[in-house]
């Protein structure tokens, strides 16, 4: 149990320290924002204010990779509808960007006093519930099988390569000198936090949507008898408490609905954006952070999702889909509705009627 509590403490304190150390306000850690920065640094979009190779992202993957290798848990697996996962990955980031933050940042926003972010929790829970309705009615993307080991090294290899380019100051990577991309904690802090969180998340299989999904799937009573479910909830609770305390201690807590960083008053679209994230995450068994960690331990299907997330991050910027202080742009609204429709279509086409929960969801619902 202490490992789960430590996981929450590490991500909570680490994220708050990163925003205190230079990352944008309330954005100590955010997979979707950081993916947009990484996409920009790789030249996949041209927003000069959003280009920085955030070391946290390769840190998550490499931290998970290193611990998985050390503990003999690295296993190259794949073949469970990678192309569908790729598209779901695209829409996960679109949903996050409309809400202005991934599930991790949603908790960071709440613990920094942003009352408006609570609508994201409601949206995410509704999305998870809808996703589980499909799972309980025979949804499956196919069982992953062992694949040649080289496949599992691809994503950690890519992450290592771009991290090395960044640390060596390669001019290949674009670097913002203004805007959110120019706001960052010292690279070594970011890398250390990324590696630590990635490793511990690999060990505990930390997942925000998974923690909530387990309550719906197994029920509040049953969950207390399952160490993993209890552990995931303990991680979430610990994350909330430690991030709240850290925000209070570092003077980053401002309670209220108005004037919060990374927020707007498009609550309906924020709800739908997070509903899309919750729904999609359940279908592919894990939130955006979990996808990065799973990719680090050899899951090539999660690797396909991560590549989709990167493409989604570029599209968000190129097509102006992300939420901003003024609200949700028209393109973001269209993308969220289309994304929700796509999730239902995927759910509908991948159901085995007459069957219950597929084995892979019973043993590994992250």
């Amino acid at each position, binding site marked *: 149990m202490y490992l789960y509590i430590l996981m929450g403490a590490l991500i909570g304190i680490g994220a708050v320290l990163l925003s205190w150390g230079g990352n944008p306000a309330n954005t100590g850690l955010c997979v979707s924002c950081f993916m947009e920065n990484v996409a920009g640094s790789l030249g996949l979009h041209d927003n000069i204010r959003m280009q920085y190779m955030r070391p946290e992202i390769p840190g998550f993957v490499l931290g998970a990779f290193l611990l998985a290798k050390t503990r003999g848990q690295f296993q190259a697996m794949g073949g469970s509808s990678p192309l569908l996962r790729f598209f779901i990955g695209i829409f996960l980031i679109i949903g996050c960007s409309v809400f*202005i933050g991934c599930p991790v940042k949603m908790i960071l926003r709440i613990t920094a006093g942003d009352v408006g972010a609570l609508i994201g929790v409601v949206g995410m829970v509704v999305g998870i519930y809808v996703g589980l309705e499909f799972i309980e009615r025979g949804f499956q993307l196919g069982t992953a099988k062992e694949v040649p080991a080289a496949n599992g090294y691809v994503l950690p290899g890519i992450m290592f390569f771009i991290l090395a380019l960044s640390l060596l100051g390669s001019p290949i990577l674009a670097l913002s000198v203004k805007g*959110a991309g120019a706001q960052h904690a010292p690279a070594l802090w970011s890398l250390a936090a990324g590696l630590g969180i990635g490793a511990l998340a690999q060990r505990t299989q930390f997942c925000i949507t998974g923690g909530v999904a387990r309550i719906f799937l197994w029920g509040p009573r049953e969950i207390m008898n399952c160490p993993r479910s209890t552990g995931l909830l303990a991680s979430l609770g610990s994350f909330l408490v430690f991030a709240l305390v850290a925000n209070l201690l570092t003077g980053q807590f401002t309670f209220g609905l108005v*004037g*919060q960083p*990374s*927020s707007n008053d498009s609550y309906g679209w924020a709800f739908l954006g997070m509903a899309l994230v919750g729904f999609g995450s359940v279908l592919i068994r894990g939130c955006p952070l979990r996808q990065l960690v799973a990719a680090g331990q050899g899951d090539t299907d999660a690797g396909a999702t991560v590549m989709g997330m990167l493409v989604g991050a570029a599209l968000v910027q190129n097509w102006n889909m992300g939420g*901003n202080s003024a609200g949700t742009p028209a393109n973001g609204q269209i993308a969220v509705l*289309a994304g*929700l429709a796509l999730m*239902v279509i995927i759910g509908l086409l991948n159901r085995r009627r007459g069957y219950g929960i597929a084995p892979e969801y019973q043993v590994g619902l992250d």
Partner: protein
Amino acid sequence: MDRFDKISMASILVLLLATITLLLQPTPESEKKQALARQSSANSTAAPEIAARLKVAANLLATDNLGKAEELLREMIGQHPYDAAPYIVLGELEMRRQAPIAAMLAYKSGIELNPDYLDKKTPLFKGKQIKQSVTESIELIDSRLLASPGDDDLQEQKKQAYYMLRKLAGSCG
């Protein structure tokens, strides 16, 4: 096909209809303006003619010729609607007139065209002045709302002030 399939298909239909309806809507003016600004702001602020006229406006402001300065700035805004600098100087002018709401709205137009005015890492940073205008605006709007709570203009101004607070607080994007 079971009941769940039927519910799913009905959901898909509703979502696709809503998507198509949104697709057929014209792009909001504010988003068009931002897109145009992104293309035009890169070279216009640096144009020597604009810089020279801004200097004249600043001198007029320094010598308390507020009327002439405003005239010049409004002329510039008419000629270069996608350049942020005249709006920012107009904001300063309105603060000198102790008209924080007008100042805030001028600053709003300016930062929407060029967010560098809110970025500490750029030499254009005017965050403190802009924040002051927003704080004073909110105080003024609140006091006026006490007198006439149903005033739609004041409600709209308050909405703009909250938007400015969010801009000042920053974002990841």
